[in-house]
């Protein structure tokens, strides 16, 4: 059966044969109507850098052990999101749907909800169901709080009190027209803690971590930092073993990934020493809820990307827990610094543009400043109250004054970059076409990386994440900026 001794007789169609001709219309850039370039001047959003609020709530819900999101809306509301998860993580993503059809739109979604929850729970036996609302359920005015009560009652009467009460329903209200995926995750963090966390006045000597929409590799890296510090933690929405699972059949049916945060852990979060929402806009609501309700100190961001931010995270962790950072972490820090020193000629004064979700972009901006790069344009797809001031403040420390876009779209970003001498672009896969037009490399980071493999597996947070990022950056610069014979003798 070996193909070595017996070559394939003829080939199919290769991609090379499918190449097509470009028909140039103009030799140089023709600027688009400048009056319409700023997003503020337009009704149209062209090439958004954010998606819908339910996405964030589903992301969170899938981070629970035996957790299934249930989306009160039309089928596309789950199919598209599942599709996106599959593209990003190359993993299955199980999400249930109320299957809104015309009758639900007319008569409301109560029947779909109670029946749907029943069907889901009876067959799948989840531990926690994240109830996610959508544009449609919010517009038709579904009274979800009362639906949840009715559904729960039905479960208890059908399954008996033990099984019926075992499954927890957490309602997250996420009308898409009121915010982005960032807000969806943020709201989910509060909804879970409001619904599940309970004060037993028994300190658990742990800290709470709400990672935000970081990748499995990032959550693993955070756990590594905690383990090195000797700190035990509850991670809310721990997707690390949900969206990066081993291939180890046979599987038990229905298929659930092994990982995820357990309901008991969320309940116990009211007894922790402190809460760290690594991304302030993605989990900050949950951290602040615990602070107000149970007086648990809350730290919201900055995301521990780069040297200073990781230092800050560990300093706070040490202060809260009374533990000292071990030598192993000092070594990790030292290795990153060594790497930065070794590569500084490639990073210094390089002009860089960044886009993505507000928290990660803010962290990345500080890191590129630490590398001696010059951020010339920074964009957050989701508008936040602090983004502009945060970026201006931290870049000011390094003497830079980038153009800041708070809640803008990629069209404005791209047209602006065409007037700037940018050398590197940092952002998600949606920047690929821009990078090609500008003829600069794109270093892929953030939530929507689906056209390169492995991003989700390796961290960007922590000192080791910094090494990975720096390697990606410098390799991209080497690939694009120097003739080959130079790079062969670094």
């Amino acid at each position, binding site marked *: 059966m070996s193909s070595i001794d017996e070559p394939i007789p*003829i080939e199919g169609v290769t991609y090379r044969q499918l190449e097509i001709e470009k028909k140039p219309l103009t030799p140089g850039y023709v600027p688009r109507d400048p009056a319409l370039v700023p997003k503020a001047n337009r009704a149209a959003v062209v090439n958004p850098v954010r998606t819908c609020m339910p996405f964030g709530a589903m992301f969170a819900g899938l981070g629970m052990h035996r957790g299934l999101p249930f989306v009160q809306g039309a089928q596309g509301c789950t199919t598209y999101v599942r599709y996106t998860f599959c593209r990003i993580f190359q993993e299955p993503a199980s999400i249930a749907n109320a299957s809104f059809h015309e009758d639900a739109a007319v008569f409301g979604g109560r029947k779909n909800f109670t029946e749907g929850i029943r069907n889901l729970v009876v*067959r799948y036996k989840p531990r926690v169901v994240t109830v996610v609302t959508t544009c449609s359920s919010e517009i038709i005015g579904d009274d979800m709080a009362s639906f949840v009560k009715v559904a729960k009652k039905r479960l208890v009467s059908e399954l008996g009190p033990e099984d019926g009460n075992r499954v927890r329903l957490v309602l997250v209200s996420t009308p898409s027209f009121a915010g982005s995926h960032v807000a969806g995750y943020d709201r989910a963090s509060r909804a879970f803690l409001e619904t599940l966390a309970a004060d037993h006045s028994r300190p658990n000597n742990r800290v709470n971590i709400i990672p935000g929409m970081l990748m499995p590799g990032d959550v693993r890296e955070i756990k590594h930092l905690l383990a090195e510090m000797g700190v035990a933690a509850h991670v809310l929405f721990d997707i690390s073993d949900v969206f990066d699972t081993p291939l*180890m059949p046979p599987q038990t049916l229905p298929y659930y990934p092994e990982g995820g945060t357990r309901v008991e852990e969320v309940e116990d979060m009211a007894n922790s020493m402190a809460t760290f929402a690594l991304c302030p806009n993605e989990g900050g609501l949950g951290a602040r809820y615990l602070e107000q309700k149970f007086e648990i100190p809350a730290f919201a961001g900055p995301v521990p990307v780069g040297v200073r931010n990781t230092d800050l995270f560990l300093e706070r962790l040490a202060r809260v827990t009374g533990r000292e950072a071990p030598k192993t972490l000092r070594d990790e820090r030292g290795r990153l610094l060594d790497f930065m020193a070794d590569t500084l000629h490639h990073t210094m004064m390089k002009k860089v543009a960044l886009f993505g979700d507000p928290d990660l972009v803010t962290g990345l901006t500080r890191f590129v400043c630490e590398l001696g790069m010059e951020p010339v344009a920074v964009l957050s797809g989701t508008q936040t109250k602090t983004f502009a001031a945060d970026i201006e403040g931290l870049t000011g420390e390094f003497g830079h004054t980038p153009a800041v876009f708070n809640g803008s779209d990629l069209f404005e970003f791209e047209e602006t970059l065409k007037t700037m001498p940018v050398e590197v672009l940092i952002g998600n896969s949606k920047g690929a076409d821009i990078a090609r037009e500008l003829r600069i490399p794109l270093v892929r980071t953030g939530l929507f990386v689906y056209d390169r493999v492995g991003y989700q597996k390796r961290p960007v947070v922590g000192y080791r994440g910094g090494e990975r990022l720096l390697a990606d950056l410098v390799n991209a610069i080497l690939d694009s900026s120097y003739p080959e014979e130079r790079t062969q003798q670094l």
Partner: protein
Amino acid sequence: MPFVRLKCNESIPERDKHTYITDCKNPLVPRCNVNTIPGDMTERGCAFAGARGVVGGPITDAIQIVHAPVGCAYYTWATRRHLSDQYAWSGPGRLDNVAFNRRYCVVTDMEEKDVVFGGSKKLLKTALESIKLFPEAAGVIMYTTCTSGLIGDDIGPVAKQIEQETGRLVFFAEAPGCSGVSQSKGHHVANRQLFGQINEIRRKRPELITPEEERTPYDIALVGEYNMDWDLKVILPLLESIGMRVLGTFTGNARMTDLVRLPDAKLNVVHCQRSATYIADLIKEGYDLPYVTASFFGIQQTNKALRRIAGHFGMEERAEQVVARETARLQPALDWYRRRLAGKTVAIYVGGPRVWHWIKLLEELEMRVVAGACTFAHEDDYEKINARAGDGVLIIDNPNEFELEEMLESYRPDLFLCGLKEKYLGRKMGIPTLNSHSYEKGPYAGYVGFINFARDIHQAVSAPVWTLVNGKETVFDHVEHR
């Protein structure tokens, strides 16, 4: 009793009517194209997905505007691999062939105030701005979704106004996600509405109709071909080699004016017979233009398609020449793959007609289909499946995730042909999978495309990783499975 109850469906007996085992003497048509049971973990999408993602999405020279909050637009932005000979990026300069459908995602980004006060004005403004920003585009295609549909935004008058103010071509599809049971409804709605708009344009702007001197007796239009991973690059030369001239495609690599010219053909060739027979029917009725159905998947079916099309024009001989030439050229490769794949079993899960298209195709590789499932097939699809499947094949209509898991676990097929969402699930079960919706490394159509398909199947099935996954003796044998 050919209907079967899967173990996972014991608590949802309604699902029994959707699952059966084929029996040639006793053919059954399951309950299909009906509402999904809420909470059953459906794989279906929505009507908007059918209209925007499948039908309108491939049209390349139009600015695609989604009238909705940002999510619906974001998820349909350059997701599906319907390629075109237009570029998404140009380097410095502007191109004559820009793929607006993949390069730009335009959305009205409805916010709370638009939901409360209505969004029609915002839609109009968005469209006018986009035309100003992208003057090289031929026009716009607009879509409504749940949000704009539920609050009752009226898109027709907006379209008219855009047309009047700019003179551009305007198409639109009103297919809110919650209308209809699946994406199939969106195909239907978009077909009907686009046909109406094509008529209207032809009436108002007769200069866009193909002039008499440009017509040939062998003009055909390809309907329901979406150019997945460049299928058209394979199909078009075949049609040309039997003497046809392809006037336009609905809608793979299509320009807006191509659509206007669709009714000028002498014959329509329907490829996807689920999503586009509607418009072929309408054109037949309205323009007295006949159509034939054709499948370009697999050798036998491609042969048949060429013969059928050529036969319509009395050019059987040319078809025979092409068939003889191509099949002879293909034979060695076919033998090569057949030797490696013969006897292996397959489960197919696709949207609609590809199950019955591919039963034939897999037979040519001497593979055996043991289970099949369709997301949105209708009665006629199941009739065709029954005619081709043989006895004892498990068929599931609108399968949910649990049913697919059970199907894979109990049949353990050597290959699972499916879409992106299911392919990772199949892999967790240790079963080789292949994305057959938008392909792994296509094109898969026609003769040479068939070799690509066979190659991808071979690569999926024979990868050494499966031996390692399913290998029995490892040092971890004492470690208990959860």
